[in-house]
């Protein structure tokens, strides 16, 4: 890590109200280029709202989000989003799903084909390219989603509890796969989870949010060597530190 880190995403005084309900209260933070940032917080603290504000799906009530110093714009910035719910389009095959983002960005046909092949290879779904999601297991579906997100070579990748519904064994595998892809592509990742262990396992920094109205409670660096051992003393201590920060009971 001897290169000088640039700021990639800059959130300034984000505030969001639904009617009179204050959901986000004056949130400010930076994300570095190529960083893996995990965001944890108590259940129902508006993490998804937070992420949706980042991408301007919900307009923020106050504040700015800058990417490379300019206001964020999905039509200009190359962003990908992976959600907790299955977000594969059920009417498209695996291959068509992976093409989806590239087609919207109106990439050239040869580039699309090249990327699709590359992604199918990486997530190991080559034989299943013509299957529809309802013919696949949940793990293959999530891998399709990951492939779709990485296919555009995003400068910023947002993940909202992507593995929340998976069983534990699969989660472990896909987390490792994600780390591999992240290292390979050098993309900036913002990863939301309510699973503290997952956050500490993946992140370079963990940002802890408070309960509604959501504010930033603390940002912890998380620089254990990889691959990380979830049963090691240091890991468990760090995990407990984060857990204590979000305990509300």
């Amino acid at each position, binding site marked *: 890590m001897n290169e000088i880190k640039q700021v990639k995403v800059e959130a300034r005084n984000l505030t969001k109200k639904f009617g009179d309900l204050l959901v986000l209260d004056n949130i400010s933070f930076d994300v570095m280029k190529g960083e893996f940032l995990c965001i944890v917080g108590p259940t129902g603290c508006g993490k998804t709202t937070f992420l949706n504000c980042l991408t301007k*799906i919900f307009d923020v009530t106050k504040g700015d989000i800058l990417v490379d110093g300019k206001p964020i714009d999905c039509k200009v910035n190359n*962003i*990908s*989003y992976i*959600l907790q*719910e299955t977000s594969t*389009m059920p009417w498209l095959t695996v291959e068509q799903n992976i093409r*989806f983002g590239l087609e*919207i960005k109106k990439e050239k046909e040869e580039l699309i084909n090249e990327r699709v092949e590359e992604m199918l290879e990486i997530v190991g779904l080559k034989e299943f390219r013509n299957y529809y*999601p309802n013919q696949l297991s949940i793990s293959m579906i999530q891998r399709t989603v990951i492939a779709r997100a990485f296919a555009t070579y995003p400068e910023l990748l947002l993940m909202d509890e992507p593995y929340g519904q998976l069983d534990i064994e699969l989660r472990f595998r896909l987390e490792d796969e994600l780390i591999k892809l992240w290292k390979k592509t050098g993309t900036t990742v913002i990863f939301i989870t309510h699973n503290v262990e997952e956050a500490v396992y993946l992140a370079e920094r963990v940002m802890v949010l408070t309960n509604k109205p959501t504010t930033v409670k603390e940002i912890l660096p998380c620089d254990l060597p990889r691959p990380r051992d979830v049963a090691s003393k240091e890991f468990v201590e760090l995990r407990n530190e984060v857990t204590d920060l979000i305990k509300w009971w």
Partner: protein
Amino acid sequence: MKRLKINKFRVISAVTLCVFVLVWYLVTAVFGLFPKTMLPSPDSVFFSFIKKLTSTVPDGGTLFEHIFASLVVALTGYVIGVGVGLPVGISMAWFRPVDHFVRPVFDFLRTIPGIAWIPIFTVWLGIGLSAKAAIIFVGVFVGTVVNVYSGIKQTNEVHIWVAQIFGASKIEILKRVAIPSALPYIFTGLRVSLGMAWLGLIAAELLAAQKGLGYMIQVARNFGRSDLVIVGMITIGIMGALLTLALEFVERRVVKGI
């Protein structure tokens, strides 16, 4: 063991149907409990059916002529109704201003059954093809709009988000996400309105026509020919079922993965 069980229930079904026909035969042909004008015997229905294939008595057309006349009217109204209903339903669901203006009018108009328009359409368009097609149009239009509207409205917001973040415009999201994901609803709409079309057709033909299956059973009723009435009803049922089957065949070809 399991196979044996299924057979058992098949047998019960078959026996019930046989008993039904037998009872029907007994009360009509053997004991004559009902006058012929009310309930014909099953065999007379069968022979009337065979005869009607070639005979033009009493309504001036063979069965095939009536089927053909009905099909032309029903399909004309159906195609126009779907053709107008699809874009209206889609734009109502996707564009808020359209929703604001059109929805209340639509909500009111949809509570009026297509049949009630018959007097107006006959004044406007006479009693030819266009009036009947217009009546069918009303039912088909309503059925299509309602289903397409709710289909588009129920587009999973998660899918919309994905497209939005990839930078898709509103029209592009409609084209790439909302419409494909609403396809099952759209087909439900097409199926429901096919039923509506068939219903509207019979109603229109009962009230004002010189050909067609509805006209045929109406004339048969006037002559007290209950056997022909039942032949007509069965034909109507079979044609309706066949049209639905054809549509379902198309649906299986088009809608995949959902």
